[in-house]
């Protein structure tokens, strides 16, 4: 292929790539606001060794006057734990819900657990404060696990956004967090 022909091919390829990037780029500065910390800057660790399921919860504040449709949550997991994600869509008093709890075994989260729904299909009302709830099933009593940040994907008014929740949640033994 001569140089002129190469240019003819290269220009559309570059344009297509740029257009593709533009189409795929998703804003991480949308109206659903989480902790907004750097990845790994904040870690919340709980003690492994309990029976049952471990829950971590993190507030997500909607700053939009339209409802927010959460479409999924994902994040890298270390260990054999099974992670499930939920959203409690409208929590009036976030301070009344523990930041972490074991189930069964601890009180204070019953109301949240009764209203939380799968994060794959949760609608957060306009201006509401929601809770992202991470369920950790360690599988084996005493097993350690770590969820190294999560990404919440959501839609508002036909636009897609992501909110990176940089907080690391972990089950540990001892005080090594």
């Amino acid at each position, binding site marked *: 292929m001569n140089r002129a022909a190469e240019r003819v091919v290269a220009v559309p390829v570059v344009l297509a790539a740029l257009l593709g990037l533009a189409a795929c780029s998703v804003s991480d500065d949308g109206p659903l606001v*989480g902790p907004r910390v750097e990845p790994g800057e904040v870690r919340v660790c709980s003690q492994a060794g309990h029976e049952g399921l471990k829950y971590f919860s993190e507030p997500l504040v909607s700053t939009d006057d339209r409802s927010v449709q959460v479409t999924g949550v994902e994040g890298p997991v270390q260990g054999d734990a099974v992670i499930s994600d939920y959203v409690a869509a409208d929590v009036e008093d976030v301070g009344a819900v523990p930041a972490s709890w074991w189930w069964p075994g601890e009180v204070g989260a019953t109301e949240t657990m009764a209203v939380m729904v799968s994060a794959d299909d949760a609608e957060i009302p306009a201006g509401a404060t929601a809770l992202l709830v991470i369920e950790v099933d360690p599988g084996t009593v005493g097993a350690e696990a770590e969820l190294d940040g999560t990404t919440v994907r959501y839609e508002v008014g036909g636009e897609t956004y992501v909110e990176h929740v940089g907080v690391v949640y972990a089950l540990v033994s001892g005080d090594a967090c």
Partner: protein
Amino acid sequence: MRADEWKGGNATVNTTPPTAKYCRRYAAGDILVKDNSKQVTWNAAASFYGVGITAQTGWNTRGRLQVIMGSGGGNICGTGGHATTSSAYQLVVKP
């Protein structure tokens, strides 16, 4: 909590915990770590049960704050937002 630099000198100061209304409860044995906090300057950053740990400058962007909850658990409260957020600013640990 461990300092990364020693300024020298000795001083005793009386401090009053700041008003921190953004509280969340952590279980016994839970650990909260804020490390390399790029958006927080640790000036008089932490008070535990009303006792100021550091009321002087010296905590900086390399600071690492670790709170280990004792038996019974407790609340970690931020003055500007919940403890895990970038806007927490100052933290107060309460029973």
